[in-house]
């Protein structure tokens, strides 16, 4: 599908995709800022505070009622990490004009509501309402603590934290508990005013409406946005691995161990690396799935991910505590096979087919298209569907092996059970 990308105001980009097949339209507004230790917490807090109320809809009930009347339009806060940038804002999904029983138009009121949330927040004494800020601080702190509740996510997050300590990539998406606790209304307000004037903004629409109509609605909704120089997103920095892999082990009261491993993949051949990752552990026909799970029954899940913009590969697995070494050895052995080019033609074809199919079906989901365009805008890696498919089609087994050879183990993290005998 064709994307139209235009600069509405300096540093404010509008991405438009025309589609008539969906039941809904999707409208998104996102701030994109380089990840920084002091900015992560206020960035993560802002959408939730803004979502509490505006000068016209002063509380959550008023906002929720407005959305109910727009036929249950959704308007969710998002805080995402794309490369070494933090992206936060709002995504709204609302039924397409064709299905509105009363024949009302929804794009204009949704865009107006988004503009109102961004530019006319509820205030007291010229800054954010203190009760809204303190309530959302508590919620954000709970959210940060809750990462612990999903041990798989927790282990994956700890791996990246340890592996990328001192790099932007190692900064937690939601900030730290301490940084959130230290925020207060006045400082958050000042932070937001600077952001409104200087941060890159990415807008996105996908649906049946014509481009000009959506553009007009957005220009109206965002008319009060300050104009000026805006900071571009940063490209991810490549970092070399340590001479000896780092090891971290943590103990908790859990029934299953979590093994997380991270490599630096220094190759510039990203397309070959995408396929190497799939063959290694990226889908249900990968070496990790077929061997570590199916053949050796060591785990329910063992999968790998390639962080393209940063040049990392990570593996995530849940294993019995006593199988830790066996699982790790087996994961390394499977990687060695990829590096030696020891894979069958069907393994490369299967990986290629699955990936190309995933690229093609992206256009069947407005949410996935939004996610993809935001990622491209943030990382600066622009690539059309055709370019990506062509590049993947041209990858040879030799290039896959060469890309995998660029991987060097950096960090191993293990979450183990507590030794109950000492209690």
């Amino acid at each position: 599908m064709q994307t139209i990308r235009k600069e509405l105001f300096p540093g404010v980009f509008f991405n438009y995709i025309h589609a008539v097949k969906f039941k809904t339209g999707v409208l998104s507004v996102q701030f994109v800022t380089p990840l920084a230790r002091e900015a992560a917490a206020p960035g993560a807090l802002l959408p939730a505070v803004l979502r509490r109320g505006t000068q016209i809809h002063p509380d959550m009930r008023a906002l929720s009622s407005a959305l109910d009347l727009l036929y249950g339009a959704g308007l969710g806060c998002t805080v995402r990490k794309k490369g070494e940038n933090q992206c936060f804002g709002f995504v709204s999904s609302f039924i397409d004009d064709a299905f509105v029983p009363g024949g009302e138009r929804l794009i204009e009121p949704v865009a107006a509501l988004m503009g109102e949330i961004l530019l006319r927040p509820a205030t007291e004494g010229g800054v954010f309402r203190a009760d809204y800020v303190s309530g959302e601080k508590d919620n954000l702190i709970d959210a940060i603590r809750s990462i612990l509740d999903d041990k798989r996510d927790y282990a994956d997050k700890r791996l990246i934290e340890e592996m990328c300590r001192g790099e932007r990539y190692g900064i937690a998406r939601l900030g730290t508990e301490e940084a959130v606790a230290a925020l207060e209304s006045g400082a958050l307000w000042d932070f937001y005013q600077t952001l409104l004037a200087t941060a890159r903004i990415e807008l996105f629409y996908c649906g049946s409406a014509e481009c000009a109509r959506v553009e007009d609605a957005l220009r109206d909704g965002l008319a009060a946005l300050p104009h000026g120089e805006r900071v571009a997103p940063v490209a991810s920095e490549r970092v070399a691995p340590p001479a000896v892999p780092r090891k971290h082990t943590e103990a908790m009261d859990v029934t299953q161990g979590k093994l997380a491993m991270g490599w630096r993949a220094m190759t510039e051949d990203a397309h070959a690396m995408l396929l190497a990752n799939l063959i290694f552990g990226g889908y249900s026909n990968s070496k990790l799935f077929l061997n570590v799970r199916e053949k050796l029954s060591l785990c329910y899940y063992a999968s790998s991910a390639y962080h393209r913009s940063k040049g990392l590969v990570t593996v995530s697995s849940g294993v019995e505590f006593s199988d830790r070494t066996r699982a790790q050895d087996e994961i390394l052995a499977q990687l060695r096979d990829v590096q030696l080019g020891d894979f069958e033609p069907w393994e490369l074809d299967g990986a290629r087919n699955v990936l190309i199919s995933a690229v093609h079906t992206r256009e069947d989901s407005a949410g996935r298209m939004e996610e993809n365009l935001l990622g491209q805008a943030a990382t600066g890696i622009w690539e059309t569907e055709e370019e990506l498919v062509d590049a993947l089609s041209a990858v040879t087994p030799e290039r896959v092996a060469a890309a995998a050879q660029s991987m060097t183990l950096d960090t191993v993290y293990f979450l183990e059970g507590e030794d109950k005998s000492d209690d």
Partner: protein
Amino acid sequence: MTETAYPRIGETVLRETLPNGLRVAVVPKPGYRKRYAFFATRYGGVDMRFCLNGVWHDTPAGIAHYLEHKMFDTADGNAMQTLAQNGAEPNAFTANAMTAYYFDCTEHFDENLRILLSFVSVPYFTQESVDKERGIIAQEIRMTEDSPDWRVYKNLLQGLYRTNPARVPIAGTVESIQAITPETLYACHKAFYAPSNMLLCVVGDVDAEAVLAAARDVLDAEPGAAIERDYGAAEEPGAFEKSVVYPMEIATPQFLVGFKCPADAEGEALFRQSLIGELACDILLGDSSPLYMRLYDRGLINGSFSGDFDQLPGAAYLYAGGECREPERVAQAIMDEAARLAREGVDETFYRQIRRANLGASLRSLNSFENIAVGMADGCFRGFDPYRFPELYDTITKADVEAFLRENIVEERRAMSMLTPAKEASA
């Protein structure tokens, strides 16, 4: 095939029942690249006790899920790999009352569909392959047992129900799956994977006649025997246990409060009841309700708080919860608000607002092929048409919702499930 148009939601469905009893539904989606096939049996975690050809069988907890894992094995290898080589992403799930196998792809749809129909209908187990799976499933069960969301929900069902199999974990326990053998798996397959107990739903830009042809070619011509199911003794209207408290390694306490509702509706009445239950839930405690805002402003609940209404075989319940430090206070506030609504009635404007929002949400969910197929299967197995929601909303009044709240959101039907942090979390 019978074609039904649904102009209010812009959809069309083609349906046919084959001579072997298989129901087929094709939902055309012009303009989509993705083609999606979903093959489901009316067999899930709750179907542990059943009668086939006059003989009653008692099977171990977790067997439907175990069978799902083993169905991918074929005499030639593994169907998952064959499909993946064709660029299809196959997967499966076992729910309380359904097991489903599905894939989506852009190329080779007909070939992939035939593979799906074949591996699901032809069992192939050996003692060795069944034993090998035990380790994988045991790890899956362990992972689930460490999940607070799962634990708080399962404990709620165990509080609400005394005998209904909804209280049993779908995957069973590491202990219960030890008793599963190739013979029990074959017996369950024979009982529940007969064409007359199944639905094939295809969503996408496909040739509907070719879908029928594939089903005719691949599947058994015999419909299979009728199955009688036993979901345990009739339940009392009241909750079985008032409260279940469970310590876990979590950062913030969590809870769910549930209300046991009558579960005797069938067919379209069942679907209508689910729409009423969802409306009641949103009016009582949804995010535009007065109660939600009061609790949120006081910091008693956060964005994790939500509620829903579920109906399983022999079980129906409205439930709500999330992260919360004072669950008893929140539960009491929910009861008080329900009592107020029952006494004073629901505001007519607010009722219309919520009905409008829920209609929009139902429509929005039709962007997902999986939602469409699961809805079709649920409707097929329980006797309703999921695409008739706009018409059903027309028949529902605020008096229906008030009656629902008055009858169900009461003390004796209530159970609580609470998770407490096992110790102070380290940062």
